[in-house]
């Protein structure tokens, strides 16, 4: 018989449901139900997932939720029509906007009972009393024909039966049909332990303390039609009604597809006309001498598609945003598949020149794909907020909101909470939390647990791990996506419930990017990119200090000096290509032209490496392998990349041309590749692909290899357009670094935090390139780093970089500005004068003294600190007057006591520099230890990097980077820095475990092992790793801070 289960509480009703919407869908299908619905409290956060899953398994899904008014009985509500759905969203939005983020407050009068497109069911209360009966009567009047009386049975004994009888009696009296509504908190009884754990987390108690708050039995779960029959054998009509409700719910989320984007009046023109007008203007701006034929053809093709699909308003919206940013001098650039569009180029949204590249518009917008394109725009990371604020102002909160992101439980928090629920002591919770650091998707293994002092065989611990595993991946709460926004034509609150964000004035929708993608709703990603801030600053500095006027579009292209620099691996600070993996790839790839950079950006990523694309490409590029194509058609697609598929567009084209996929299927394949949370989907396409290729005459082996390569795209395959957009930024930053390393350093320091390296490495690198760097000084520094000198004396016309006050740890911006302001009246001559004129606090003065910033006053670090501490803190007016008079006479009154202080040793000074600035201009700590180290057989990084493959060597240095990439199966990469440069270490998992302590805690590490050399790329395979921090301590007499940054 047809039956539906209409009351599934999913994990999106946080801490109440223990199963995911997808799990309900699959279980419902398996059980043979006709359909299901979610009953999450006051939210529709999970409905998109449920809808998609239902579609996949082939059952129906009714959109709805539970409404819990404060002053009335709870109801279930389902959308029968689009209008009903809109009304439901409005109601939920109203309930959420009146309270802070994450909460909802509904009153009986808020309920949209008069909406013809909504169906309701009364949920049986704990006690059927007169208040309930009265409300039921009201409801029956207001919603007759659309209201049912729900009955439930969870094998809870006589009271349940009494309630059911009372409800049935009431329903009979009010002539309301009964509806079988058993609740499901689990899709499977085996989830009951997790449900109890969630209850304890919610109630903040242990399992022992929870008592009757836990689940009495596992009967609150999905039932099959047979199970429902057995459960409600005495009320068969209530079961029949479930099918009736399901049938009446004709609304599907697919019906939301066409409700976008913003339409405005453009001075009498339609959006399409306006778009064409802007395109004409933009093309003239890009090609003042006339638009090339290739581009003209591309533009008309694109405009035709856009007109057909009605996407013009979308492009106009994005263009408006970009125009606003440009008007404020905010650097921005589009990324992703949007760079495949000539329209975007002429509108200035993206920067990939269609004349020079082969764009695949279909990757961006496709008639086969009835969904709007995805335009992501990068802005300067510091000014992104301005743009977001403008969007809210321009479109209003009715039409614009941030997109949510679902924060799921992770191992660390899951283990800690579950351990707490079991009543395990704090120490054990801490130990578990630690064991979870850096763990992969499988959680901590036995060895890691033992290393944290835990016994993996302990049965309670095993239980904790099991339950934590179930918990990981469940949604924990909704948070705001930093830059994703949704803009709609119809009021947003009729599309999806909206709630308050944590930031005042901002609102967030309940769905995340994947949900919006799946439904084809318009969203824009306003991202922040540090390099854009850096470039903007660089352009300003060039203008001000060197009279050079440039912007992103006007940087001289294809400069061999720039490619030469990159080919040497000299790329610290350069966007995207400065990481350890990248710098080891650059000398092998030896980029010589722009397209080489595009490839570089795309291939040094886990996806291509896993997909076995990188090595074949390199071999062919270095001439070690002939460039061959298995067929002519593949040769056309893969020519530019030497026969190796590297880009998403290529994978799509191969699927279409070589495996006979239709564009829709190619789309599906690409989506499966992009949706990395459902990695198993790609495998489903394997059979189709391989058969397709074989049918067209390719060998099965080859076809399977091809597919394997495509599978590698699953994690991080790039669209070529995206790589091209990034490659522009790579080139731009490399150009600045190559020709104006002084400007580059100042700009990148002022844009911190960003990038891969800390200021210490950036400064060291700049100095190695001949840039003079001057220390922080109270008489010369501004807040930002600045350029000094006229450069005439320097052969390369290089200016010196003066470190700014922002480098001083613990000095606030306000205080720094006060110093600079006070200095306008003239330089400071001595410390008491500075203190009096600036009015800075003692703390600020001490920070400056510790940073050795009083050099221009003739004070060493110690003397300055001593004097600062001797300053009188009270300012009595009489003293001030006497002071002023005395000063005119010369010399400060009430002088601080002189003291003979020992000046620090070289090593100490360096260490103190590091503590205060994070870097030192005096030298590298390792310089002072070099003799000592050399005596122990330790080489400099430069010397070690010159050794042949297989040689044994020992190096020492400060760990600046630690990486355990997810794809590398526990292998750890470490970069050590000494006074000559970097040494790259590789630790296999057993070594990483054995030397875990040194890995995590050593501020100075010594590594012994064997050199692994591949051409220019050198690594040290570590046999032994030691902690030599005590040597540093001897320099400075105290434990040094650990400087390393950690990366995935």
């Amino acid at each position, binding site marked *: 018989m047809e039956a539906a289960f209409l009351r599934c509480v999913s994990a999106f009703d946080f801490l109440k449901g223990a199963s995911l919407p997808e799990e309900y869908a699959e279980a419902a299908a398996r059980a043979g139900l006709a359909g299901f619905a979610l009953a999450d409290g006051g939210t529709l956060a999970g409905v998109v997932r449920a809808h998609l899953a239902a579609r996949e398994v082939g059952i129906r899904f009714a959109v709805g939720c539970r409404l819990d008014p404060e002053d009335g009985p709870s109801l279930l509500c389902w959308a029968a029509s689009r209008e009903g759905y809109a009304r439901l969203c409005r109601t939920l939005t109203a309930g959420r906007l009146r309270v802070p983020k994450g909460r909802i407050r509904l009153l009986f009068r808020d309920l949209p009972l008069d909406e013809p497109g909504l169906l309701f069911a009364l949920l049986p209360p704990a006690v059927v009393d007169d208040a309930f009966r009265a409300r039921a009567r009201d409801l029956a009047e207001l919603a007759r024909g659309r209201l049912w009386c729900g009955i439930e049975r969870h094998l*809870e004994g006589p009271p349940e039966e009494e309630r059911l009888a009372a409800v049935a009696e009431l329903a009979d009296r009010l002539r309301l049909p009964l509806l079988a509504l058993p609740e499901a908190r689990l899709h499977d009884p085996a989830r009951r332990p997790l449900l109890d754990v969630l209850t304890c987390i919610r109630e903040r108690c242990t399992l022992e303390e929870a008592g009757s708050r836990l689940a009495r039995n596992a009967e609150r779960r999905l039932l099959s039609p047979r199970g429902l029959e057995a459960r409600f054998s005495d009320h068969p009509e209530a079961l029949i009604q479930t099918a009736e409700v399901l049938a009446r719910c004709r609304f599907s989320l697919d019906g939301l597809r066409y409700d976008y984007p913003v339409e405005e009046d453009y001075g009498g023109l339609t959006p399409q006309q306006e778009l064409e007008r802007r395109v004409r203007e933009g093309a003239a701006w890009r090609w003042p001498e006339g638009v090339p034929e290739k581009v003209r053809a591309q533009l008309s093709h694109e405009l035709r598609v856009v007109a057909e699909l009605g996407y013009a308003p979308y492009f106009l919206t994005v263009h408006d945003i970009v125009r606003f940013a440009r008007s404020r001098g905010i650097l921005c650039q589009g990324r992703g598949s949007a760079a495949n569009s000539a329209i975007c180029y002429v509108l200035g949204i993206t920067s990939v020149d269609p004349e020079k590249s082969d764009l695949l518009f279909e990757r961006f917008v496709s008639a086969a794909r009835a969904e709007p394109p995805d335009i992501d725009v990068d802005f300067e990371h510091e000014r992104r907020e301005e743009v977001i604020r403008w969007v809210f102002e321009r479109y209003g909160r009715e039409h614009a909101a941030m997109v949510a992101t679902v924060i799921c439980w992770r191992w660390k928090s899951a283990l800690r909470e579950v351990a707490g629920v079991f009543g395990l002591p704090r120490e054990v919770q801490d130990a578990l939390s630690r064991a979870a650091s850096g763990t992969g998707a499988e959680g901590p293994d036995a060895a890691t647990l033992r290393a944290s002092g835990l016994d993996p065989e302990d049965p309670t611990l095993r239980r904790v791990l099991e339950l934590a595993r179930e918990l990981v991946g469940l949604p924990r709460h909704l948070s705001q996506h930093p830059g994703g926004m949704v803009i709609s034509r119809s009021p947003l609150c009729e599309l999806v419930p909206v709630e308050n964000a944590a930031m005042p004035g901002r609102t967030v929708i309940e769905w995340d990017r994947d949900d919006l993608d799946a439904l084809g709703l318009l969203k824009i990603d306003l991202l922040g990119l540090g390099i854009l801030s850096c470039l903007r600053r660089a352009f300003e500095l060039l203008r001000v200090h060197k009279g050079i006027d440039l912007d992103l579009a006007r940087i001289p292209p294809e400069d061999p000096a720039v490619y030469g620099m990159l080919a040497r691996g000299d790329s610290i600070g350069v966007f995207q290509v400065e990481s350890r993996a990248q710098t080891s790839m650059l000398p092998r790839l030896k980029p010589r032209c722009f397209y080489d950079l595009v490839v570089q950006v795309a291939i040094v990523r886990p996806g291509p490496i896993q997909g076995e694309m990188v090595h074949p490409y390199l071999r062919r590029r270095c001439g070690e392998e002939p460039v061959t194509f298995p067929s002519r058609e593949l040769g056309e697609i893969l020519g530019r990349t030497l026969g190796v598929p590297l880009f998403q567009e290529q994978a799509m084209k191969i699927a279409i041309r070589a495996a006979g996929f239709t564009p829709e299927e190619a789309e599906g394949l690409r989506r499966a590749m992009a949706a990395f949370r459902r990695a198993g989907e790609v495998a489903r396409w394997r059979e189709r692909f391989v058969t397709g290729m074989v049918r067209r005459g390719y060998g099965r082996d080859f076809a399977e290899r091809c597919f394997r390569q495509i599978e590698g795209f699953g994690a991080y395959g790039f669209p070529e357009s995206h790589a091209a957009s990034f490659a522009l930024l790579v080139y731009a930053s490399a150009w600045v670094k190559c020709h104006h390393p002084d400007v580059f350093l100042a700009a990148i320091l002022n844009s911190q935090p960003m990038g891969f390296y800390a200021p210490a490495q950036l400064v060291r690198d700049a100095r190695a390139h001949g840039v003079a760097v001057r220390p922080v000084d109270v008489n010369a520094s501004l807040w930002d780093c600045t350029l000094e000198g006229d450069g005439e004396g320097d052969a390369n016309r290089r200016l010196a970089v003066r470190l700014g006050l922002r480098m001083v740890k613990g000095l606030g911006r306000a205080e720094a500005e006060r110093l600079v302001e006070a200095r306008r009246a003239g330089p400071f001559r001595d410390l008491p004068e500075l203190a009096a004129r600036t009015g800075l606090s003692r703390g600020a003065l001490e920070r400056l003294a510790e940073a050795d910033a009083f050099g221009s006053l003739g004070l060493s670090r110690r003397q300055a600190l001593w004097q600062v501490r001797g300053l009188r803190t009270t300012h009595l007016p009489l003293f001030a007057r006497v002071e002023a008079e005395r000063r005119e006479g010369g010399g400060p009154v009430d002088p601080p006591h002189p003291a003979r202080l020992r000046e620090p040793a070289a090593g100490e000074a360096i260490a103190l520099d590091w503590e205060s600035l994070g870097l030192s201009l005096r030298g590298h700590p390792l310089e002072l230890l070099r003799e000592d180290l050399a005596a122990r057989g330790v080489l400099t990084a430069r010397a070690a990097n010159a050794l042949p493959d297989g040689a044994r060597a020992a190096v020492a240095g400060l760990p600046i980077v630690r990486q355990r990439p997810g794809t590398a199966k526990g292998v750890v990469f470490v970069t050590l820095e000494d006074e000559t440069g970097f040494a790259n270490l590789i630790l296999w998992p057993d070594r990483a475990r054995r030397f875990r302590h040194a890995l995590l805690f050593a501020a100075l590490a010594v590594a012994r092992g064997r050199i692994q050399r591949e051409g220019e790329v050198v690594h040290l395979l570590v046999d032994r790793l030691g902690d030599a921090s005590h040597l540093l301590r001897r320099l400075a007499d105290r434990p040094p801070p650990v400087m390393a940054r950690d990366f995935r």
Partner: protein
Amino acid sequence: MPLALVDRTRARPRVVAVNAAARARGLGVGADVGEARLRVPDIVLLPDDPPARTRALVRICRGLRRLSPRVVPEPPDGVLLDVTGCAALFGGEAALVRAASDHLRRLDVAVLAGLGDTPEEARLRARFAARAPEDVPAPALAGDPRLVRTLHRLGLRRLSDLAALPRAAVARHLDPALARRLDALAGRREEALAALPEAPRFRVHLVLPAPLREEAALPAVLERGLHRLLAGLERSGRVVRRLRCTLAGGGGSRILDLEPASPAPDASLLLRLLLLRLERRPPPAVVEEVVLEAVRHAPRPARQRALEGGEEEAEAFPRLLEELGALLGPRRVLVFEPRDDHRPLRTVRVREADGVPPAPFPRPPAPRPLLWLPRPRPVEVVAVVPDGPPVALVEPGSGLLRLSRAGPVERIEPAWWRESDPRDVGRDFFAVRDERGRGLWLAREEGPDGAPRWFLLGTFG
């Protein structure tokens, strides 16, 4: 076994003390908990308890009073003795120091000792015995971590560096407290030592003018003594928690220890309890002395006075318990209390009676048997379908006893996180009525072979 104490009052718990075993493994004071466990995975961490430590120091001070009249505790881990003029009594300064150290070692306490002309000097010598005085690190005098950092920054490493600075400069540029400590060290300043708190004793000793030979006269004497004792306690704002009554006479003595559960027992209660006790174990035939001592006492707890009175009633239950306890012995009076749990057998808890009346039992979620069998009795049941309700009971010897359903099944799953209790059986519970009109409570669960097992748990009425 490596052991460390952890200060958990801060956001990042830190180690504040380590024992020798932990120190040998490289763990030092100030490390945070994560690091501690990493270095010494089998370390045992206990929370620091500053009041307990201070109390321990006070006890140590009392023990050392035989060496000097002025002994003061110096938390967190020190004790200071003013031995001016005492040395001669013990054979010299070195001998005195040895005596103190030996005494403490016998108590199993690890000791560092130092002697000096001023308290400050003694403190430093104790901690830095091995070094020459000039080499004592400057941070030892600083205390405040920020000051330590400043000293380090200024390159002032050792005591000699500090001593070389003009005193006014130290006060102004560094810290006035530091300057004072330097003064104290050099003897330029007198340091006042705190006094050791005396432990109060509450004791009443009655020497009877004429020996008591009749038991009947004893209560009056005891009453008098109790009143005096309690009055003394009252004056100090304290109440007795443990009373020792000693009755001595004729060469024999009887000692009675009472530990009333009532938080603030009064004289009449104590008297009654004493008398009850004496009924079971009579006093000596002749009583010449009575000593009543509060061997354990506590601050008087705050008493909420009910607005309408009714205290008498509130007191009635605790009094009853006291008397029963006194009669039957401690820990022999138990009360039933409700426990919040789904499993029917676990809804009742038994605990020792203290002054608190047991909470009332809430209404059970469904009817529960009036009489519970002491152990679930396995029975054979006939059911139409294996997972259906019971239809008849198989009575050994009498054949089938037909059953009629009195209510719907209750399914209550056992707790999955607990060890299974063999007495806590059943998953589906049925209230049924048999032909004779008896109400029975049956439980069914799945046996190890998958077939259903039935039990009788109790009867209704």
